[in-house]
């Protein structure tokens, strides 16, 4: 899709680069490690979370290897540590920071027409705090890991567990500060740093999603911080607020934990929704359907996420009336979620759809998110949950949301913005192959787990009756395909860094402000502050034209 410019489109290629790109201005190690440039910090985060993604992936590989045979390969104690560390690392060291700290960091200022985030030093500090917490979790892992499950339920975690629970809990505690700093930066930036004309209802939906997720992060994380702090105190001194011997209530831990960790699911999914809302209009070449409905859905998801936490505790001994209320509230979540799915679907209608790799990932997201969402409603039903709680059905459900949906969107974003970030085009056919492989591998891995859960296979068990081996083997085989699909982009994207074709400023013909500047962007983004005159996603599928947010008309 090459951009042939018409008379008004002279500004699509900046004529001569008056300042070097952010990648080439300063090449010392110090210029990277002490940078205040949001784009470089985004790349630092990208390196960190990719590392933890593969660490968590190794733990998952060992788990699936173990479950390939009914008697298992690993010692039961080792298996317990593997699924715990898989959960902790994937949740706090990949999924929660994944899209906000990388693409959010890189593109929120570009999309709103700002020269940087509001607090660049806080942004850099966030990366250092993240890595500090990463070192603590690696310490816990190398010393032998924790074996409480990622939920740290008391009194198992405070009294009975033998692993490095204190270190793991402190890692989560410290990690929270990184989340808080990042989200604070986004909220203030989006409020105060928008370019002239960039009104709230002209913000790209990705920015709205980052705003919604920042609010959830900012208000949920301190509860987890206090919760893990109290846990660490109790683990350290031996007496604490969750200790039943002194009248403490272990359920209180669960309430406070899920008060954070349910919204945490929305922390993972909201930015992914934002990414998909960018991809679908761009590759369907038509405006998003129901823009204002999408923004309202995002914000209602952010708010509703705080009123559903106890649906994780239906069988933990809460009252039946509380259960009914939380079940009902959980059903309410389906409304904005469904609005989003319908709007993405309708956005394809009468479009001129291009099946490039980012679009394949986006369509995969919508399908996997729908499966994950519908099975979520099944689990929200009180009577069904009594049967399915603690089975592989739950595992399959939340992996459809967190891995199927969020990681697909992460890879979609990575491909979509790769030309802008690096200035290079990736090999399209390899990318399409990886996108399809991800979808196939993912479904092969996790769909059998729905069936296993329905049959009654308990989660966190290192062994199972031999009759379930074929389903488990299918799941493990799918996991190996999924692993290939996740490693593949590392190879061809790495190749494209050196051998890929040079990218133009706007290779996809997209409308956002980030595409009006050169690829890769100059150090301070905009030489002059852009003026926004129109809403995002002004694509015209019939005339094959689009209008950027600065109001410049282009032919495709």
């Amino acid at each position, binding site marked *: 899709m090459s951009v042939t410019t018409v008379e008004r489109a002279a500004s699509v290629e900046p004529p001569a680069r008056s300042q070097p790109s952010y990648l080439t201005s300063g090449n010392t190690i110090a210029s990277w490690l002490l940078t205040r440039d949001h784009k470089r910090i985004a790349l630092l985060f990208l390196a960190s979370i990719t590392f933890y993604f593969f660490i968590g992936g190794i733990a998952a590989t060992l788990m699936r290897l173990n479950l390939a045979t009914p008697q298992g390969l690993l010692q039961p104690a080792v298996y317990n540590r593997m699924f715990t560390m898989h959960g902790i690392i994937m949740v706090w060291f990949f999924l929660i920071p994944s899209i906000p700290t990388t693409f959010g960091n890189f593109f929120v200022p570009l999309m709103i027409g700002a*020269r940087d985030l509001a*607090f660049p030093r806080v942004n850099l500090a966030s990366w250092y705090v993240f890595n500090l917490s990463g070192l603590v979790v690696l310490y816990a892992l190398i010393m032998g890991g924790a074996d409480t499950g990622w939920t740290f339920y008391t009194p198992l975690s405070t009294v009975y567990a033998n692993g490095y629970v204190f270190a793991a809990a402190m890692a989560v505690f410290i990690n929270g500060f990184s989340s808080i700093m990042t989200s*604070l930066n986004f909220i203030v930036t989006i409020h*105060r740093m928008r370019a002239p004309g960039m009104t709230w209802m002209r913000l790209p939906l990705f920015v709205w999603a980052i705003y919604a997720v920042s609010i959830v992060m900012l208000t949920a*994380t301190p509860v987890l911080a*206090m919760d893990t702090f109290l846990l660490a105190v109790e683990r350290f001194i031996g007496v604490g*607020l969750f200790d039943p011997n*002194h009248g403490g*209530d272990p359920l209180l831990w669960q309430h406070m934990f899920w008060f954070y960790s349910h919204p945490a699911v929305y922390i993972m999914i909201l930015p992914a929704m934002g990414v998909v809302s960018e991809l679908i209009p761009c590759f369907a070449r038509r405006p998003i359907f129901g823009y204002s409905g999408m923004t309202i859905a995002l914000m209602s998801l952010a708010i509703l996420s705080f009123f559903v936490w106890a649906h994780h505790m239906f069988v933990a001994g809460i009252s039946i009336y509380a259960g009914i209320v939380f079940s009902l509230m959980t059903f309410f979540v389906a409304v904005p979620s469904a609005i989003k799915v319908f709007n993405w679907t309708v956005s394809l209608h009468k479009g001129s759809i291009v099946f490039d790799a980012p679009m394949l990932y986006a369509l995969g997201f919508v399908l996997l998110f729908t499966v994950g969402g519908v099975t979520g409603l099944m689990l929200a039903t009180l009577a069904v949950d009594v049967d399915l709680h603690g089975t592989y059905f739950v595992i399959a459900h939340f992996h459809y949301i967190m891995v199927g949906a969020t990681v697909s969107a992460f890879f979609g974003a990575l491909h979509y913005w790769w030309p802008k970030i690096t200035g290079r085009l990736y090999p399209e056919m390899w990318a399409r192959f990886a996108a399809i492989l991800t979808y196939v591998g993912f479904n092969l891995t996790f769909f059998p787990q729905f069936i296993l859960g329905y049959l009654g296979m308990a989660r966190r068990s290192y062994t199972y009756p031999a009759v379930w081996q074929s389903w488990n083997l299918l799941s493990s085989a799918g996991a190996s395909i999924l692993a290939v699909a996740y490693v593949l982009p590392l190879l061809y994207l790495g190749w494209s860094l050196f051998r890929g074709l040079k990218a133009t400023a706007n290779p996809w013909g997209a409308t956002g402000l980030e595409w009006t500047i050169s690829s890769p962007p100059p150090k301070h983004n905009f030489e002059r502050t852009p003026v926004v005159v129109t809403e995002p996603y002004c694509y015209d599928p019939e005339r094959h034209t689009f209008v950027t947010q600065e109001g410049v008309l282009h032919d495709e």
Partner: protein
Amino acid sequence: MTNSSSVAPEIQFANLEQQGDTAQLGIWVFLVNETIFFGALIFTYFVYRISYPQEFAAAAKDAVLWCGSVNLAILLTSSLTMVLAINAGAQGRRQEMVTLLIVTAALGCAFLLIKGYEYYLDFQDHVVPVVDFATKPGEGSAGELFWIFYWVATGLHAIHLMIGIALVLYMLLWRIRRGEIGSAYYAPLEVVGIYWSFVDVVWLFLYPCIYLVGRS
């Protein structure tokens, strides 16, 4: 007096006004987070206070009321001097601002000294969980929960106050000395002041929870 014209806005801001505005919003957003952090702790306190009213009342009688009350007066006064310092800075009265900030920091230190003395009295009274704890009549096993809350809450508050004192000293020894705070631009001092008042407000909530409820 102060030469604020030497302060240039950072690259991402159009002017100093936007920069100051943004800094203020930043601290308020941060305080939302802090409020929920302490809110979660006070929430756990109320959960147990409602579950074990007699035991908590019995345990709370051992809290040193005069220390808490004097500290409340000290912190409220320090917030007043802090606000007056910002006011003086905004109007360009540099000497007055410096004096008031020194008084503010000194009041903060006085709070910590009294708090330290109170901790010493607590030690004498055997109310330090695990280290030296003697269950008093009427408080049962839940009394220890009160004291865990007491140590965690006052400890976290003291850490916040120390950060506040450090910020005031940073203002005095670095930003003001370099002439970066004056009538044209005083947002950094205002941010520190908002944070300082927050630490004060936390004590306003902890004080009745620890020292007053159930004592009659």
